[in-house]
């Protein structure tokens, strides 16, 4: 039974250029009805109570309004019990002092702020509708509200950016004295406005060399500032790794609630329908909202576990791997392991198989070797 619960709030006041998540403007929907449907879905889903981790993501959860969100979260907590880690994502554009205080009161103990950049021109380019000052203010408000587990999301390799811009963003993020930082190279997701302008030749991605430099810079700078690099894009102060997200990379079960949310339960990977109206309709008719349900074979599980584990800096715990998958990793990936060890892209230490430092920027070229047996 899943110990982690993800709840998707499919609303956002304005869609950012690069965003590939499913979200719609809240004013076009009967938000209450949608949130009620999510509560109904949660009610009939099985998971271990109290949930160990609870993660509210979006969209922008706060875009539905403080009252609606707080009412919703209270109902959620009634169902899940008090989670050890209870995260809510915050878009600075939708955040104020009140919101953070209220979240704290409901029992939220971790917030993840979608800051993205401390360079105004980059925020503007990405379609983020707030100022750098608003980020500072949001962090301040969170701290004042009593949050001592704050995460920041950052994006690098924004077109037009350079290394000194990125250093500036990192400096400000470090100064903000938060516990967790996720740093993502900007990706061009299919069917996003950003990807379309890039295909049309109107926007040029930063070149590979700079992208790599920026990635190496964040690894170095955050290490200096006392953050532990624990996943390809994630960094945490000691004791503050995101436990919810670790569920994904350790390939453990999780429950996803809401339109477009994904679950992994009992070796089934399930994805809810990406359509708010249909989602509500299904739930109201007491049907499940799955649009896709895939049974994961033992071999696929072995692949997925390897790929996901390797995203962690600690890599694959080979003993645990054997126990979990009941498969001998060398039997299916022996050639790939040997090849990548020879190329010094993988390393074997203390019965753990992990990416080397130089493999990090080209991790997919190694991970793909584990996507299916040799």
């Amino acid at each position, binding site marked *: 039974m899943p110990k982690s619960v993800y709840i998707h709030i499919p609303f956002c006041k304005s869609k950012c250029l690069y965003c590939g998540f499913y979200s719609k403007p809240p004013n076009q929907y009967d938000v209450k009805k949608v949130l009620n449907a999510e509560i109904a879905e949660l009610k009939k889903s099985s998971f271990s109570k109290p949930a160990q981790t609870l993660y509210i993501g979006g969209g922008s959860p706060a875009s539905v309004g403080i009252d609606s969100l707080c009412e919703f979260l209270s109902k959620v907590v009634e169902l899940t019990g008090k989670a050890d880690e209870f995260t809510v994502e915050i878009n600075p554009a939708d955040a104020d002092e009140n919101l953070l205080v209220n979240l704290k009161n409901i029992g939220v103990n971790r917030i993840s702020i979608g800051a993205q950049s401390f360079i105004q021109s980059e925020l503007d380019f990405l379609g983020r509708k707030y100022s750098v000052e608003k980020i500072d203010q949001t962090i301040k408000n969170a701290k004042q509200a009593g949050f001592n587990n704050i995460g920041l999301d950052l994006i690098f390799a924004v077109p037009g950016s350079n290394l000194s811009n990125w250093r500036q963003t990192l400096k400000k993020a470090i100064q903000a004295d938060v516990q967790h930082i996720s740093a993502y190279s900007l990706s061009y997701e299919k069917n996003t406005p950003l990807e379309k302008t890039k295909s049309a030749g109107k926007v040029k991605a930063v070149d590979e060399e700079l992208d790599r430099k920026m990635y190496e810079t964040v690894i170095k700078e955050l290490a200096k500032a006392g953050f532990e690099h624990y996943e*390809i894009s994630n960094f945490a102060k000691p004791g503050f790794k995101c436990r919810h997200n670790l569920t994904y990379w350790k390939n453990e079960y999780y429950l996803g609630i809401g339109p477009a949310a994904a679950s992994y339960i009992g070796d089934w990977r399930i994805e809810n329908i990406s359509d708010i109206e249909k989602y509500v309709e299904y739930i109201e008719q007491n049907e499940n909202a799955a649009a896709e349900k895939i049974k994961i074979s033992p071999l696929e599980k072995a692949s997925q576990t390897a790929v996901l584990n390797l995203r962690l800096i600690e890599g694959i715990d080979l003993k645990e791997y054997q126990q979990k998958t009941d498969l001998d990793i060398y039997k299916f990936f022996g050639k790939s392991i040997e090849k990548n060890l020879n190329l010094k892209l993988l390393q074997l230490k203390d019965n753990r198989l992990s990416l080397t430092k130089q493999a990090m920027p080209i991790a997919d070229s190694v991970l793909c070797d584990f996507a299916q047996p040799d």
Partner: protein
Amino acid sequence: MDIANIRNFCIIAHIDHGKSTLADRLLLLTGTVNQRDFKEQMLDTMDIERERGITVKASAVTMLYTLNGVEYMLNLIDTPGHVDFHYEVSRSMAACEGALLVVDASQGVEAQTVANAYLAVDSDLEIIPVINKIDLPAAQPKVVAEEIEHILGINKNECFHISAKSGQGILELLEAIITFLPPPVVDLTKQTKALIFDSHYDEYRGVICYVRLISGRLNPGDKILMMGSNRSYQVSELGKFTPGMKKIDSLGAGEVGYVIANIRTLSDITIGDTITLAKEPAKKALPGYKKPLQMVFSDFYPGNNTDYTHLRAAFEKLSLNDASFTFVPQNSPALGFGFRCGFLGLLHMEIIQERLERENDIEVVQTAPTVTYEVVETSGETYRIDSPSQLPEKTKIAELREPFVKLEIITPKDTIGNIMKLSEMKRCQLIRTDYISPTRVMMEFRAPLAEIVYDFYDQLKGISRGYATMDYEFIGFEVGDLVKIDILVNKAIVDALSLIVHRSIAEARGRKMLVKLRKAIPRHQFEIPLQAAIGGKIIARESIKAFRKDVTAKLYGGDVTRKMKVLKRQKEGKKRMKSIGSVQIPQQAFMSILDTSD
């Protein structure tokens, strides 16, 4: 039938000049095929022949026609028109007394018209010149008749003007075949002699020999002897092609037909061999044919989803129907187990490759084609090699010889300049230039086969707006200043990429090969040095830069399924390539190196 009422003839033409259409028309007019059963290119039975509109295998058909109350038997032997199939053309001619030389009224005399006409003259055939497609708006039958007279020495007034498509002039032509072409020469020797001029393999009946009876008679039940191989068989069936196989009771002197005699595989017979009767054998065999000469060689390795045994079975099956290509097992350190194959020419190679893949549902990795070289060792030993890897140590080589051909090109005169440039680049030496009409010339070159074997024809078409045509004929081996270029990928020699070239162009070619390879090999996790070397000396370098960034930034719960698919594809892409050391080389890289274009 009285031998005086038999006519054996073939149709020869440049590709696309309407040979098969004319054959179709004759079949219709003689009532051999009725309108209802008719389909285009009746005589081309392979899919590939119909699709490409070319004839690959020779075939034979018997037609009956009554003129002035006398019934005649007309045996038409269809021949391929492409330069690669000279061998089959000359084979067919040996079974004929006459030839229809078909020339397109809008295109005029082309290189293969000339080559085929010369072959016909050499075979002592009576030639009827035929100008086809006279109903086309661009037809210039008068100009074409002049060309025929000028270049082939045939009286322009003897030309028949026809349209095989509409049927215009066909009746006159048909009657001319009877009145103008001679009947078979009567060989008065009593012993039976039959020339095997072609064969094909039938799954149920075994080998079917196409024969022309020179003397005597064949009957079912006869014990026959193959004079060349000294094997004997018993005739189980005789027949004619009409154009389907039709059983008959007996084949007489001068006639053309087929013999089935429980022969298991094509390799049991030799095309050009003489069939005689075991109980009363002929004293001397017919002159026969030279063995086909494979001039172009290429390695075939099993590709994806194909294994070696599968590939071997496919080659064996194909060789049942085409005795003119060879295949021998080959082991490449880089590519593993495969076959070294020899072909008559490039089109022949292409056709075999296509038939392999199409008829057997297999995939092959093919290396760039090369020609045969002749090695003279310091010990005096002389032998031929068909792969650069067979070249002995440098110190052992006294001489290295390469094959030369007589190359004939017919082209509009305003393209002469371009053709001269191309021929210089390809080490061709101009022997002579003949004006075949005020606007067109025939140029003859001595050319190294290696230079024209690969993309010469494409380039020729390009620089002549598609007008130039060519034909070539092997003339012999000549000493050349030849060197072997080795290609090193990530510091290791990849044998399948080695190449023998003339020293004068070795450096330029080496550089070009590396540029092509750099484009064909995808970037890896590390930098890959590419080097071209001659005898250990590096003559060119390139490198494939490592990719620097390839990592998915976000991978959370909702991304797993989609991302796994992407990674799976990435791995499959790697698998499709040949692994050489830690470098993955895609299949097209092995072919791309010979592409000399920029």
